[in-house]
């Protein structure tokens, strides 16, 4: 187990390096440079650009330095080395701010969770909690009352939730809640009010809710057909004990293990929802960076998100090992 874990963790390094390499290469295909200004503003003159390039090491070769000295003294490897030390470089558009400051630095005197990333993290956690609290009981009930109208309703809702993308759902909800019923303000300004979080969190978590419902139901159905359930019944255990002690314990293993990736997916996948609701998270910052062509910001955020996803996928494998002793890692 330990060697397996170690190998999995070590394997993350080349994977993340490649993600960085792909992103880096693609970003350098894009037109425009870090010192470009809006076309209607005064441009940075050539001499200053050169000085700035030298200061930030952008005059070096892209991948390998063949001009003698250290071959790894190139833009890419310096970027990676800095990124490991937590420095994602200056934003191309927000002058004087580094990418990591934009993402992780809260406003003065506020705790970490008031940073851009903190906001997205809280929204993701809230969405996951809502999805699990609604999805797990619904899935269990659907399995216990299999082939009843209840089961069909749960399946129908989960099919819609799995297939209809969240931003389309958001459009419907905004139009109904804000446009027709006037319950919700379209663009919230005040996110200190917990009620303001509910609609984005519900929309964001709906797909996950549908997925959890389906997974719980299928997993329950599988467990219900197992021999040990029959044994439990045969020795005269009551229905409730069988359900809680024998079925749920086993049926919820797959549900628990997807929580990590689900959370990572919700945090990294919330950018459209954040943009639609004007939510001040890292996702909306990312969309702004796309439209501003803020390449260093796009690259830094992508890397952070990739790290999150790789770690989340790792937790699945680890959790399986601990929760289900039947699965032995070779």
């Amino acid at each position, binding site marked *: 187990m330990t060697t397996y874990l170690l190998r999995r963790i070590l*394997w993350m390094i080349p994977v993340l390096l490649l993600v960085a390499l792909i992103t880096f290469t693609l970003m350098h295909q894009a037109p425009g440079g870090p010192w470009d200004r809006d076309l209607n503003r005064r441009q940075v003159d050539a001499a200053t650009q050169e000085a700035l390039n030298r200061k930030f090491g952008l005059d070096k070769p892209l991948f390998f330095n063949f001009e003698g000295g250290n071959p790894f003294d190139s833009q890419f490897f310096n970027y990676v080395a800095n990124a490991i030390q937590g420095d994602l470089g200056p934003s191309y558009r927000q002058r004087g701010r580094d990418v990591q400051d934009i993402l992780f630095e809260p406003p003065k005197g506020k705790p970490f969770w008031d940073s851009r990333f903190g906001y997205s993290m809280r929204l993701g956690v809230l969405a996951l909690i809502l999805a699990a609290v609604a999805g797990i009981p619904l899935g269990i009930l659907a399995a216990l009352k299999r082939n009843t109208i209840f089961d069909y309703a749960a399946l129908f809702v989960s099919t819609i939730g799995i297939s209809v993308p969240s931003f389309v759902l958001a459009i419907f909800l*905004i139009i109904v809640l804000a446009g027709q019923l006037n319950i919700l303000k*379209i663009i919230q300004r005040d996110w200190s009010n917990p009620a303001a979080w509910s609609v984005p969190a519900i929309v964001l978590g709906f797909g996950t809710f549908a997925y959890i419902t389906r997974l719980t139901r299928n997993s329950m159905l599988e467990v219900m057909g197992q021999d040990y359930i029959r044994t439990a019944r045969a020795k005269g255990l009551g229905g409730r004990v069988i359900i809680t002690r024998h079925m749920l314990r086993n049926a919820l293993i797959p549900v628990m293990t997807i929580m990590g990736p689900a959370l990572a997916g919700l945090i990294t996948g919330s950018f459209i929802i954040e943009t639609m609701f004007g939510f001040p998270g890292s996702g909306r910052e990312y969309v702004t960076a796309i439209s501003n062509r803020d390449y260093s910001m796009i690259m830094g955020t*992508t890397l952070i998100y990739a790290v999150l*996803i*790789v770690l989340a996928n790792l937790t699945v494998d680890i959790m399986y090992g601990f929760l289900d002793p039947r699965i032995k890692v*070779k």
Partner: protein
Amino acid sequence: MTTSTQTQAQTPVKPQPQTDPSAATTPGDLSAAFNRAPRSLWRDAWSRLLRNKAAIAGAIVILFFMFVAIFAHHLAPHNPLELNSGKGFLPPMWVQESSTGKAGSPEFVLGTDNLGRDVLSRVIYGARVSMVVGFIPTLIIVVVGVSLGLISGYWGGATDNLLMRFTDIVYAFPDLLFFIIVMTALRATAIGQFLNGLFLLFVALALVNWVGVARLVRGQVLALKERDFVLASRAVGSTHTRIMFRHILPNSLGVIIVAMAFLIPGAIITEAILGYLGLGLRPSTDPNDIFITSWGSMLLEGQTAINNQPWILLAPAIAVALVVLSFNFLGDGLRDALDPRLRE
């Protein structure tokens, strides 16, 4: 032992109870069961599919949208690019706006957008992009994924190793972020402008999604090549090519078809999201173009009017939801029909 085989080991293939269709019949009916004309697996699957109402409804909706996409230039009541000045923000024909006093007219069934362009015609033309984005990358994905999956599963070795390493990278990269990066970075290049930017989207979609298909086919091959009928075929001297194409591929087709049915809506959603971010299809100004607007771009254009003129946004949103839902119903139906053992 590589990491990949370990990942495989964690999801043990559960022996599925093999349901024998004749077992359900009573002994008296047995002669009838034996005397009926032999039916192929595909006929069986087809008749099971026909009994699934949701799947058939989905298929009809998909066929309808394909028809709309092909004959868009005949079906659209207006030129989707025509600016009807003074007729901007008209509501759909059955709506009477109380605030502005504007009433919908039968001339513009689903209303007009801010520039007075006919929403219905634009939705009709948008179907084209969605259908093409759904089907073309999926075809590429299936061809590449199936060939590499077959080779990797059957021969193993370097291809297999490479496939597994590539999978790790693709799984680590959030796909949507990859699409966004590709579309932003290469948008201004020649490839990015080819086919109004659709070509680049095809490539990006194919690059990410072939891995899933290859993994799926590889798993199938690994399971099938140990089966007795393959062994028997080898024993009578079949060549490897013959075993691959006569035995393993036909037996994997069901899984491949189901995977296709779920890849298509995924691609359509991706296009809509990218369009909404302004990274999808490049809006065309030439009315003779095949691809003029997409549902994603329409969502972006309608976004600012979400409060007061929701119909601009509602029409493409409903279209996306309807098409995606239909593909999912069809996919579920196909899975149940092609592999009844997997029925939930």
